[in-house]
Each structure stands twice: as structure tokens, then as C-alpha cells.
């Protein structure tokens, strides 16, 4: 069924709180996964799946008449799985199988296990924007007036393929495409500025021919507003890029402000501490 749009910001914040609980409990349960970036992007994905996107939770891989979302930084899979389950693509109970043998919730999202809501495998970085462009071109050829959203990490901008795609989209006026870059300033080996500086990422995209918007990715009001602005800016012959400032680990005080929680699971005590900071709003799975 077509997902109803939620416009109440407080309601969206409640969902985000539950999604953050889901992320932590999944990663804790398998003692494996990537909580930092998942927590940081939680508000964005809630804003996308519960407010901005037109999509149908009785999943059809082709996505005719729907807005599409592609996760390029596939390691924040616990976030995507939670949002898909909470949207109604599959039972939230299945979140308990995350990263375990025989699960459809693989370490990185895949079409291979036929999990509803997933249209492309992701994990090896740098590929999602190209895929999103292909899907956007396909929608144009089929005269569909839907949007395609792609989320990438800022560390991922190190990959050469990203820049092949960045030069392609304006050349072909792919103006039904919104690329969102999670600017949390962190990657595995440390701060992005130290590992491989992105310098002025917004101006780089602008120089390639993109319209650039800015968003506070951990502010639900701003997330909803900026996604609406991005959709409004579509259809003018120019692809849209959103520089989304987030805090890795957002919502859990001791996980914020560091790359250390990129790919580490919390222990018993840390989980209890983290969950105490996040109200259980929709009921744990």
C-alpha cells in the first residue's frame, strides 16, 4: 500500500527515536555492524520514508510510479532495515536476524535475499550514485515524474567512480535526482580532513554543475524542509545535491563526535546507557 505521509514533526521525531533504538539493538544483538553513521543518518531516512517520498510498501522491485531510494554507503544497513520495517515493508521482528546466518538482513543490503524494499546491493563504496542516475534516466524514458534519492557518505567521496557520476548527471540534465552526502567528517581511519580531505565539497559539486542545498541532518524540521526544497528544485535541467551536516552517533552522547563508533558494537552497559537516552516510542521489536 502507498505509504501515508506524516507531516507532524513530533511524530517523525518519535519514529527516529525508535529507529535509533532498533539500530543499537540490532548491532548489539549480532555484536557487529556500524552504529555511528546509522545513528547520524536516522533523521534523514525517517524524513525520506515517512514524509518526503511517495512509495509503496507492498514492494514491487520495478517501483513504477514511486520515488526510489538508493543507499550507496551500504554499511549503515541497520538504519535502512529499521526504516523499511517500521514503514511496513516487512515485520519488525525480522530485525532480530540482522547479520546472522540465513538472514535476509545481510551485513550490507542486497537484492540477493529478496528483502522487500531493496533494489540494489551496496557495500563496496562509490557505486550508488551511478545506479541512481540509471534509475533516474529510466524514469525519464518511461515518462514517470518521480524522484530518485541517493545517499552517500563523505568518506565515500574519495572513490573515483563518484566523480564519474558527478560529471555525468549535469551533462545529461538528470533533474529528477537528489544526491545526499552525509557530511559527518569521519571515516574509518579518522577525520576526513586528515585521511583524505574533501576540501570544499559544496563548491566541487557546484563546479560540476549541480544545484547545492545545505541541511542540518540531525534537525527534523530542517530535514523535512530541505527535502521538500530539493523536490521543488527538480525539473529544471539540473541535478540536486544536498550537503547534509550530521554528527556520527547522533542521539547517543558517548558515541558522538568521534569516528570510533563507525564499526563497533556496544557492550551490555553501553547498550543500556544508549537506550536510556532514546525513548521507546513505537515498541521495541
Amino acid at each position, binding site marked *: 500500500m502507498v505509504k501515508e505521509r506524516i507531516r507532524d514533526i513530533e511524530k517523525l521525531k518519535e519514529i527516529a527515536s525508535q529507529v535509533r533504538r532498533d539500530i543499537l539493538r540490532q548491532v548489539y544483538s549480532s555484536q557487529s555492524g556500524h552504529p555511528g553513521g546509522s545513528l547520524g543518518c536516522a533523521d534523514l531516512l525517517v524524513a525520506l520514508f515517512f514524509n518526503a517520498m511517495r512509495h509503496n510498501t507492498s514492494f514491487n522491485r520495478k517501483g513504477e510510479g514511486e520515488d526510489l531510494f*538508493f543507499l550507496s554507503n551500504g554499511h549503515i544497513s541497520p538504519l535502512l532495515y529499521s526504516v523499511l520495517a517500521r514503514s511496513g515493508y516487512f515485520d519488525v521482528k525480522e530485525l532480530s536476524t540482522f547479520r546472522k546466518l540465513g538472514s535476509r538482513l545481510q551485513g550490507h543490503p542486497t*537484492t540477493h535475499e529478496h528483502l522487500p524494499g531493496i533494489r540494489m546491493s551496496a557495500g563496496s563504496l562509490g*557505486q550508488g550514485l551511478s545506479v541512481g542516475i*540509471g534509475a533516474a534516466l*529510466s524514469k525519464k524514458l518511461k515518462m514517470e515524474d518521480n524522484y530518485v534519492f541517493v545517499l552517500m557518505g563523505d568518506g565515500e567521496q574519495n572513490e573515483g*567512480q563518484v566523480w564519474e557520476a558527478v560529471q555525468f548527471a549535469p551533462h545529461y540534465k538528470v533533474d529528477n535526482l537528489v544526491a545526499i552526502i552525509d557530511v559527518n567528517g569521519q571515516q574509518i581511519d579518522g577525520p576526513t580532513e586528515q585521511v583524505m580531505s574533501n576540501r570544499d565539497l559544496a563548491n566541487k559539486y557546484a563546479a560540476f554543475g549541480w544545484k547545492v542545498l545545505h541541511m542540518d541532518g540531525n534537525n527534523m524540521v530542517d530535514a523535512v524542509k530541505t527535502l521538500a526544497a530539493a523536490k521543488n528544485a527538480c525539473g529544471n535541467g539540473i541535478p540536486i545535491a544536498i550537503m547534509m551536516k550530521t554528527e556520527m552517533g547522533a542521539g547517543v552522547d558517548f558515541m558522538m563526535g568521534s569516528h570510533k563508533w563507525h564499526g563497533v558494537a556496544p557492550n551490555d552497559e553501553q547498550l543500556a546507557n544508549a537506550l536510556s537516552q532514546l525513548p521507546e516510542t513505537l515498541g521495541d521489536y
Partner: protein
Amino acid sequence: MKKFTYTEKKDTRSGFGAGMTELGRKNPNVVVLCADLVGSLKIDTFIKENPERFIQCGIAEANMIGIAAGLTIAGHIPYATTFANFGSSRVYDQIRQSVAYSNKNVKIAVSHAGLTLGEDGATHQVLEDIGMMKMLPGMTVINPCDYNQTKAATEAIADYEGPVYLRFGRPVVPVFTDADQKFEIGKAWMVSEGTDVSIIATGHLVWEAIQGAEKLEEEGIIAEVINIHTIKPLDEAAILKSVAKTRCVVSAEEHNRIGGLGDSIAQLLIRNDLVPQEYVAVDDSFGESGKPDELMKKYGLDAESIIKAAKKVIRRKQ
């Protein structure tokens, strides 16, 4: 043995181009992508007739593979085209994750495979692509032998749902298969029946195998010649049936000895019916600049090498 003649020589890439022209006219879902090699891929007519269904990607093959994968989602059938080296080894991870693992209906159609690319030399002469591609779960790997077979294969793979690697070449070679043939993916073509040795060839080596078999016949050796155009899935039944009769095999391909058709055959024989096998293939080396014919002779990929290998493998079975 059955006699094969030809009236003209054509390049297999032109067979691909002719196939794309047909597809452009009959299948509205077919889309072509190219990485700045339109002239080399012979897709000018498709582009002229279907400009809205052609996507020039520039010299950016990784992005091209990703876009092709994205195009499949709503039901388009993208043919991603470039040279074999740039459509395989350069973009292996993109093919692995976005095409094969994601099971996307992408057709990777590549020209200038192997040594016969010629003067450009080893940087462009990929001899490892069959191996790389056949190792990907779910990938179909096809290497047709002449213009007509390439044209037929090009059209046939549009009707098959799943990722395909279609490999063809640059030089003009004899056109000896039927113009109106039906191409069946995964089905071997019995070129000529024989009793003494099975010569199993793919791509440009099929004509060489026929030439070799004719000379062997003059010496009283009756070779069975089989064309394996689909290296994966391999027509195991056809090969096992042949070796049950001949009890020895020569495999012939324009590819590294390691990882190609020969290795697929060897695996099959080890598991089912162990008979001697000789490889006609590049012996684990890179190529070099030269004319296609000179290179094929120097690297032992011609009728002479097939004859030698056949005689050797017949001795080994005794």
C-alpha cells in the same frame, strides 16, 4: 568431414552492430551505453535510429556499469559497450556488486577481445576476461565465432533475463555460419562429427579448428569439431558425449590458458570422465603489438597449433 566455405570476411563486432540495429527496431526496452568507442563498436545505426535510447558515458566505464544496473530496475535492457579490457578487468567490482550480485539484466557487450586487437598491444589485449567473468555466480559468458553467430547472439541475449558478458573481436574473419541461425544460449554447436579427437573451440579459434580438422583428415585423423559459444553455462552433455567417443580433447581459445574455456572443460572431465586434454591458448603471458595473424601464429593460436595439439593428445591416450 563436412566442408565449410566462406564467401566473405567480416568482423564479429559488425555482427554485434547489425544485431543492435535489429534490436533497436523490435525491442523498445533496449538501451545502449558506450564509453567513447561508438565507431569501434559499430553501433552508429542504432544511435541514428534511436538517439533517445543511446547514452554516451564518456571515458568512465565504472559509472557506465552502474548506470546500466540502474536502468534495469524499471525494465530497460541496457547493453553496456566498450573494449573487452575496459568492460571486464577495469570494472570488475562494479560488475560483481551492481550487476552479478544484484542479478541485474545488464548485457556487457565488448569488442576487441584477445590478441587480435593487434597493434595497440598488451594494455588493450585482455586475455583474462573469460576467467574473471565466469567466476561470477549467475553470469552468462558468450564468445561467438563469426559475424552471423555474433549477430544472432546479440539478439538472443535480449530475450534472456539475467546478466550476460558477450565478447567479440576486431579483425575480419571468415563468415561460415548460417545467416538465419537460431542462437541458443548454453547449447554447443556440433560443427563436424569425428571419432579420433574432440576439438572444442570458441570465438576466432573455431575457424582455425575447422582448418586444422581438414588437414588432419588428409592424414587419416577424423576430428570432431565442436563450437562452444557459451562458456558459461557450459554444455556439459555435449562435451561428455563427444569425449565418450573420441577419448581425448583439444580445447582452443583466444584467452589465457588459465581460467578460460579449457579450464572449464578440464573441470568437467576431472569430475566425470578423465581423458587427456591439450590446451591451445596463450600460455600465461601478456600479448604484444603486431598484426592479428602474426600474433595468433606467434602465440600458438592457429590451425597449425591445433593440429600439433591433436596429434599429441591422441598419442597420450594410447
